[in-house]
């Protein structure tokens, strides 16, 4: 059984009179047992909204969010913390500096989920255990965030997410705020934790090189829709959708040449009341034709395990 299945999940935010911002539109995907899935796309494409829907901090407009066969999409986000599912699905937030309470010590930050959702007996032992798992020295536990380095704060953020031993961890750009000098140690830690605790990951990131290292499968979103999903290596070596190609192409690399790069023209279309019959990538796509303006492509299987939403790919 899959850990998570999303079926035609939609999130439309009302913005002004009869205008709806389609942040997430008909998104369907699954995360298998022990699998790590990368979610990439540019800012505003809906990846963070999707992460917040799955962690049940937002209520979807429509669609099913199924955790191990049980539909959790209907539980209102306000009462979700009172259910048994809260401790099974946890999140590591983007910037450890901004997401830690400056007036809580590292110990308090890690103890908070245990106090609220877990068994409070031998609290100290549970916190020490989580700190040990993420490689945070115990003598740092009484410290406040401003007394910790960036890498140490990232470890606190991960420790509090895993202290209740969740089986689905949603990571929102966990290394974006870190220097490359510590990035590798945090990535290695995440890979080890996944293996030792048997968790599944949804890894939200715009750093494609990092996604490629850590994920088995990658989902590419553009303007609220999935445009491509497939095995990580294959997606990078043989990107099928023109947007994925542009994304893979735009990653700078040591010794790379910007002249070889084709830059995407223009800006994304408006996500407010989008025309359902126009491809969302229309206007920026180097391969667009007449048909793209009349008929929006559906996500279809092109090879086993690879899905694409493009008429011409």
């Amino acid at each position, binding site marked *: 059984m899959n850990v998570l299945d999303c079926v035609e999940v939609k999130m439309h935010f009302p913005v002004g009179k009869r205008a709806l911002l389609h942040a997430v539109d008909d998104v369907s995907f699954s995360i298998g047992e022990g699998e790590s899935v990368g979610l990439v796309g540019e*800012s505003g494409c809906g990846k963070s909204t999707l992460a917040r829907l799955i962690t049940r901090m937002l209520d979807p407009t429509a669609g099913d969010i199924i955790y191990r066969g049980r539909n959790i999409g209907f539980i209102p986000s306000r009462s979700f913390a009172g259910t048994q599912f809260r401790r099974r699905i946890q999140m590591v937030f983007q910037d450890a500096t901004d997401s830690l309470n400056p007036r809580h010590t590292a110990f308090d930050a890690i103890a908070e989920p245990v106090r609220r959702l877990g068994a409070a007996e031998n609290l100290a032992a549970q916190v020490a255990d989580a700190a040990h798992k993420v490689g945070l020295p115990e003598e740092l536990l009484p410290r406040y965030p401003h007394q910790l*380095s960036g890498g140490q704060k990232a470890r606190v953020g991960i420790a509090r997410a895993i202290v209740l031993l969740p089986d689905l961890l949603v990571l929102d750009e966990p290394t974006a705020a870190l*220097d490359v000098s510590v990035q590798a140690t945090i990535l290695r830690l995440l890979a080890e934790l996944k293996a030792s605790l048997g968790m599944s990951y949804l890894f939200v990131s*715009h750093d494609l090189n990092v996604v490629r290292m850590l994920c088995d499968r990658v989902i590419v979103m553009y303007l609220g829709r999935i445009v491509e999903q497939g095995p990580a290596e294959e997606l990078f070596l043989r990107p099928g959708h023109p947007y994925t190609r542009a994304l893979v192409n735009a990653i700078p690399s040591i010794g790379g040449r910007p002249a070889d790069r084709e830059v995407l023209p223009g800006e994304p279309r408006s996500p407010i009341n989008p025309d359902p019959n126009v491809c969302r990538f229309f206007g920026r796509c180097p391969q667009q034709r007449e048909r793209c303006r009349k008929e929006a492509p559906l996500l279809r299987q092109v090879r086993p395990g690879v899905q694409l939403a493009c008429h011409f790919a």
Partner: protein
Amino acid sequence: MSLLEVRDLSLEFRTRSGTVRALEHINLEVVKGETVGIVGESGSGKSVLCFAVLRILDAAARITSGSIAFAGMDVLRASESSLQQVRGREISMIFQNPRTALNPIRRVGRQIEDVLATHSATLREQLKPKAIEALAKVRIPDPDRRYLAYPFELSGGQCQRVMIALALACDPQLLIADEPTTGLDVTTQAAIMQLVSDLARERGMATILITHDLALASEYCDRIVVMHAGHVVETAPTAALFRAPAHPYTARLIASTPAPGQSIATLASVPGNLPDLRRADLPSCRFQERCERALPECVTDGLPTTIADSGHLVRCFNPL
């Protein structure tokens, strides 16, 4: 001929908890038309160095030695009014976060007009067409309408384009871009970097690109300056730096930058953290405590400057 020449610059911040020796014996040279990258971890002094060049330092900062010369002008001794002539007109800067650097309650077109009115001899009735032209030059679609937009109405990439339009409005000789694409998407980053390098080439403008992304620096810079904890540890032409890094810190940084198809197992990291720059007992090489190649003299002796190759300088007792 060099446009900007920083010689032996040392700078400290006096704070309540001690003196932070933020920059020590910095040398930097930028020639007309070239792009120089300054790379290093956050906290290594990249931005402070550029603030010093524009002399827009915090009140707690003291320059304790050295000189900065820009196009024959002694920046550290110049009067505030002559510096005003230079800032924005001769040297301009793109800041890290365009949303916080732009005025949120003033239309972007007006903000460009402000720069033109302050720093150039543009006639009043010429301001609006010039501002629209500046927006068009940075390839903002529909510049007539965008002229009236407020920053919150624009995307992050468009805000950065407005910042670039502001910075380039007066045709400066030197552009300082402080992490111009951090926080932008890779696709937007590619477009912004292409724009900056195209405009620099057209105008023969020199650029200093501050970044912590070595891959980005490798693609756009002619020369790279590597900083660590307030020291310049290595300076080299881009190709030479990546082919044969001489300083152990540079080598580590390159190895910790993810390459396409790399596995986590082979990705390196730099052990330890930047040292506390308030310490009285800082070793003479500030990388010594993180370095595998450290020798006894790294702690006590004055750092040597070794020439590895033409234009390739390294400050290390035991270079690679």
